[in-house]
């Protein structure tokens, strides 16, 4: 029986006060950003901006105070995220640390690891990247071959990671790799994760330019890189479980449907205050899709807050979100007869930037077939 239980999450004063603070902050900090820059969405990288966000207490928001967290609710954190994303703020520098690495360290790290990394993340001073995919893995993460071998001196790592975001400007990586051969009945066994200091010898970061010609992605080679013993994150052999639960979190945020929101704003601007009936209805349709998806996404945040498993609900939000992000582009270009142009006027430049980013919309957080497979599993079909 279908019962996904998306509940409406009412707002409260704390959330709305915070929302206004974030808006005021963004008006000052990025008020002069051009639409094409805003269209970069969470790919925009600005370390100084991230530090300021940290100063405001908007990183590590839900973490305990003893790690310089701010002990606020998942819903308050959600407010900060959605305000940043819809404004097209440059959140890339702190994004992975705040969203993935920090929560993971908090959950499975040693007390010493928590003390060492979390405060810097919360201050917006320490940036993380993730080392998951490998050249031959694709969606099949369990085929990863990068290997860490335990020696007296520490862990010796060899292998190659690919599609790494921000490795060239991050201080640390959470590395997923083999520490033991898989057992015969469980190919998902034998993986562990490590916190890797990116300045160590034996780590080479090679750029991969994306189709817009931008450098966000990297291929990273480990050649006998020696990690200290205490780089191991959580129990040895628990890497697979860590990643799986992390992916569920990764799929749940507002970044999963708001990537093209800045373009929607430019579309509204280009259409003006009295568009044709068709243009108005198209705008209303897209904005309505955002509004409903936002309720669903908030509902997922509510599940997280209550400690429920949001895997299937998050996959639904992500699948719908990827379709919507794509649709905004297609609707916008037909309503405003302007060719996409990176060096053009606001709308044309925003359109071009979003268009060139669009193939990534259905990649991030899982290809469409994978997401629908997760939903199908939630329906007990597999």
């Amino acid at each position, binding site marked *: *029986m279908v019962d*996904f239980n998306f509940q409406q999450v009412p707002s409260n004063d704390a959330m709305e006060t915070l929302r206004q603070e974030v808006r005021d902050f963004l008006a000052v900090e990025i008020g002069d950003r051009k639409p094409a820059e805003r269209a970069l969405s969470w790919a925009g990288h600005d370390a100084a901006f991230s530090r300021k966000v940290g100063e405001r207490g908007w990183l590590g928001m839900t973490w305990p105070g003893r790690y310089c967290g701010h002990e606020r609710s998942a819903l308050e954190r959600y407010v900060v995220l959605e305000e940043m994303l819809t404004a097209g703020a440059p959140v890339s520098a702190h994004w992975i640390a705040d969203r993935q690495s920090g929560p993971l360290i908090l959950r499975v790290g040693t007390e010493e690891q928590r003390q060492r990394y979390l405060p810097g993340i919360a201050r917006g001073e320490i940036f993380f990247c993730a080392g998951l995919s490998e050249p031959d893995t694709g969606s099949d993460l369990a085929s990863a071959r990068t290997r860490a071998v335990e020696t007296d001196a520490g862990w010796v790592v060899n292998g190659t990671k690919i599609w790494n975001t921000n490795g060239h400007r991050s201080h640390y990586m959470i590395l997923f790799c083999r520490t033991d051969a898989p057992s015969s009945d469980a190919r998902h066994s034998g993986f562990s994760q490590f916190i890797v200091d990116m300045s160590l010898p034996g780590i080479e970061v090679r750029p991969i330019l994306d189709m817009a010609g931008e450098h966000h992605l990297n291929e990273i080679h480990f050649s006998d890189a020696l990690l200290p013993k205490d780089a191991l994150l959580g129990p040895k052999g628990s890497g697979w479980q860590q990643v799986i639960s992390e992916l569920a979190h990764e799929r749940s945020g507002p970044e999963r449907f708001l990537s093209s929101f800045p373009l929607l704003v430019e579309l509204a601007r280009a259409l003006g*205050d009295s568009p044709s009936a068709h243009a108005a209805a198209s705008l*209303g*349709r897209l*904005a309505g899709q955002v509004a*409903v998806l*936002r309720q669903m996404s908030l509902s997922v945040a509510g599940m997280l807050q209550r400690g429920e498993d949001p895997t299937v609900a998050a996959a639904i939000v992500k699948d719908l979100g990827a379709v919507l992000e794509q649709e905004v582009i297609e609707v916008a270009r037909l309503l405003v007869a302007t060719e996409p142009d990176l060096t053009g006027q606001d709308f044309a430049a925003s359109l071009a930037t979003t268009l060139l980013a669009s193939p990534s919309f259905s990649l991030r957080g899982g290809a469409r077939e994978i997401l*629908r497979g997760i939903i*199908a599993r939630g329906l007990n079909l597999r």
Partner: protein
Amino acid sequence: MSDDVTIMIRDMAERVFADHCDRQVLAAAAVGQWPGALWDAVESTGLTLALVSEEGGGAALPIAAALSLVDLAAEYAAPIPLAETMIAAWLLDRAGLPVPAGPLTFASFDGSADTLVAARVPWGRQAGIVALVDGALLLLDPEIADVAPGANVAGEPRDRVTIDDVAVSGVPSPITADDMRAIGAAIRTMQIAGGLKRATDMALQYAQDRVQFGKSLSKFQAIQQNLAVLATHTAVASMAATMARAALATGRLLPDVAIAKARAGEAAGAGAAIAHQVHGAIGFTLEHDLQFLTKRLWSWRDEFGNEAEWNLVYGQRIARAGADALWPAITAGA
């Protein structure tokens, strides 16, 4: 607390629907037969008066809890004006008018000074009509109403009601004709959510039971992907229904009802198509229950305004407010 109330009344109602909404009742209703036993059973629970104040003889339940029955009735394709009766009784009660027994419906009348018309009034032939005429609300005297029967493609009565203007008078209405249309859109949104949920359950069940090429349909990756998309449409409609219920509860109908009806309407068509695809030929027959649901989905999505109408309402609001007010409007639900 409200959750407990919801569970309690849903359990009560579900027993009645499960007992009475069988294939024979639905098939007879589809060709115009009034399901008297079903109606009597529902009315005897008192749920038709759930929204009426205690002074008015009702249960004064919270709106969100009471209206969760609308989805549920739709899951069973219950061929009675339950939602219409609940709303009509609530309108009468709020206007200080007594609420009669029996099925009710509501309609806004329009026309010349002489003759006022309401088109496609749900169950206009069987139900007492709470009418909005020239800003006044009244329970229409059936003697003065001329009812021409009609139906939607599911066979639910949608009648043309004509009255003589001079013959009516009522109390000042707390709601406008636009409000009434939005309220209608809100209940159809909830019904779509219920209908889609059941259609999805049926498709899931069918895919698991049906064997082809030596394995269950549900094991084919292409079918799984289709079912995942279907479930996604159902989730959207369900969220939309929740938004519509909340809008009725707060009394601020727009923009959420506009958003909700448009999104649910789109999900209804796309979802119905997948449910039929999964079922194949069997779902296309009169003897299969799927058609009771999909015909309703195809009707409900157009009643009280289709997607184009409500998208336009919302789109004009946000265009007028300007591009930089777009996100604030979404977070404020305004």
